[in-house]
């Protein structure tokens, strides 16, 4: 094996030509992960299960029954996806040691395409709504895995899009959320980390639900938004306009309000009786639930739960929650009008801009520190624009 991890299309070629086998590839991935600090990125790593799946893939290939280009290629999934045969904990005390009785749809599709699940990647739990990446210090390019299935909520994932890695998250439900542990349902999206735009296109074809294609505007133009930064960043393409968006500090506040309310609502499911761990506790049903929840939610989750609950009470319901809903609705309307004039929007990928894709329900892609966004159904154009931006060919 080479020292550098190859992308999916290169690995598929090597597997098809017999230059390598899935067992060799999987063993190499596991060896490199275990021998480096990257082991800490994994909440769960199962070498035996992965090797068994890899050997089954090799057997299929030797009989001429390979399931497709992904057959035999290792991948990892964030610990927010339910998986059969591995625990699903989402860094939540309530789910410690929980084995889901079913598989998340996105994982199921990959596994039935022959891809080999190595293990589960660490998450931020319900605090994923807080826009922070799980670990910003280690680049995905150094992770020694060909691709990873991720769930994006607060915009923290976009910071992984550091050359040559690409983060792609299509609009909500373009990739099924079935079997995903939800943090904030109207913001949660399923996406992936890959090593090239070509891999991104291939995985979109495998994972995304069909949707009507959205036509490009005429004339085709791109827009650059500097993310309200005082000092602008050089625009990564020549054709297009520098624009101002109706996205202000109030928009960020609206995201904070809505995501906290939704996260609190999701956490409400964990009552320690019908759902979640059922530790012994004394008292009435309510007292028991309160004790179990107090013991199983982390400090950050407790804060989120209290904040989300408070935002639906008294004057905060009117002043914050309804104002945030209205602001989001107005922004969605504005973005519809915006994308009737522009093919795609680019801006610096940062915590300050990352939440916008989820807030406005846009398909998005992060590459080389630039976040590209386009409406649902225009993903092919998005890949094309990002490629153009990267190669300096204009992107249209």
């Amino acid at each position, binding site marked *: 094996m080479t020292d550098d991890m190859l992308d999916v299309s290169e690995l598929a070629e090597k597997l098809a030509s017999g230059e390598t086998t899935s067992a060799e590839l999987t063993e190499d991935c596991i060896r490199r992960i275990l021998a480096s600090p990257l082991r800490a990125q994994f909440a769960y790593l199962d070498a035996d299960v992965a090797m068994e799946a890899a050997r089954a893939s090799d057997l299929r290939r030797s009989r001429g029954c390979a399931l497709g280009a992904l057959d035999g290629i290792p991948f990892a999934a964030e610990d927010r996806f339910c998986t059969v045969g591995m625990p699903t904990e989402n860094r939540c005390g309530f789910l410690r040691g929980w084995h889901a009785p079913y598989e998340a749809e996105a994982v199921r599709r990959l596994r039935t395409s022959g891809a080999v699940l190595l293990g589960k990647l660490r998450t931020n739990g319900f605090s994923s709504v807080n826009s922070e990446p799980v670990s910003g210090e280690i680049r995905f390019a150094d992770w020694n895995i060909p691709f990873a299935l991720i769930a994006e909520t607060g915009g923290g994932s976009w910071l992984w899009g550091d050359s040559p890695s690409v983060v792609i998250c299509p609009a909500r439900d373009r990739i099924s959320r079935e079997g995903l542990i939800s943090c904030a349902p109207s913001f949660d999206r399923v996406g992936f980390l890959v090593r090239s735009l070509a891999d991104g296109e291939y995985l979109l074809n495998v994972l995304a639900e069909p949707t009507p294609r959205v036509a490009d505007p005429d004339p085709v133009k791109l827009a650059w938004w500097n993310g309200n930064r005082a000092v602008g960043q050089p625009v990564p393409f020549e054709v297009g306009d520098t624009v101002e968006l109706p996205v202000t500090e109030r928009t960020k*506040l609206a995201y*904070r309000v809505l995501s906290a309310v939704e996260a609190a609502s999701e956490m409400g499911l964990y009552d320690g009786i019908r759902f979640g761990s059922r530790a012994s506790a004394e008292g009435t049903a309510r007292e028991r639930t309160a004790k179990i929840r*107090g013991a199983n939610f982390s400090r950050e989750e407790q804060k989120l739960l209290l904040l989300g609950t408070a935002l639906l009470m008294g004057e*905060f319901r009117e002043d914050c929650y309804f104002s945030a809903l*209205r*602001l989001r609705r107005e922004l969605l309307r504005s973005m519809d009008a915006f994308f009737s004039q522009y093919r795609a929007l680019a801006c610096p990928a940062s915590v300050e801009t990352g939440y916008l894709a989820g807030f406005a329900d846009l398909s998005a892609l992060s590459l080389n520190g630039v976040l590209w966004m386009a409406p649902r159904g225009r993903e092919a154009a998005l890949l094309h624009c990002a490629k153009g931006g990267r190669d300096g060919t204009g992107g249209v």
Partner: protein
Amino acid sequence: MACLDLSEERLAELAREIGAELTVLTELKSDGVYAPNIEEAVGLDALREDSAGNCLPREALLADALCRDGDCFLVPDVFGEGGGSA
């Protein structure tokens, strides 16, 4: 409302932090904001006069009940004797 049992120290700590955050979040308040609601979204008139309409016969409603007691559904106990059994 959050149904969370916390130590007094933790509660005071979180109350301080949440209070500060709520102060910031109330900057979202704007005049003339009205509450969007599902009735508006689906075009229902929630303030119309009540009127009697057709409904299913009781027997049809109870036909799919796993357990029943006369004209009522029987649901499993959650606590106490027999808790968790159907």
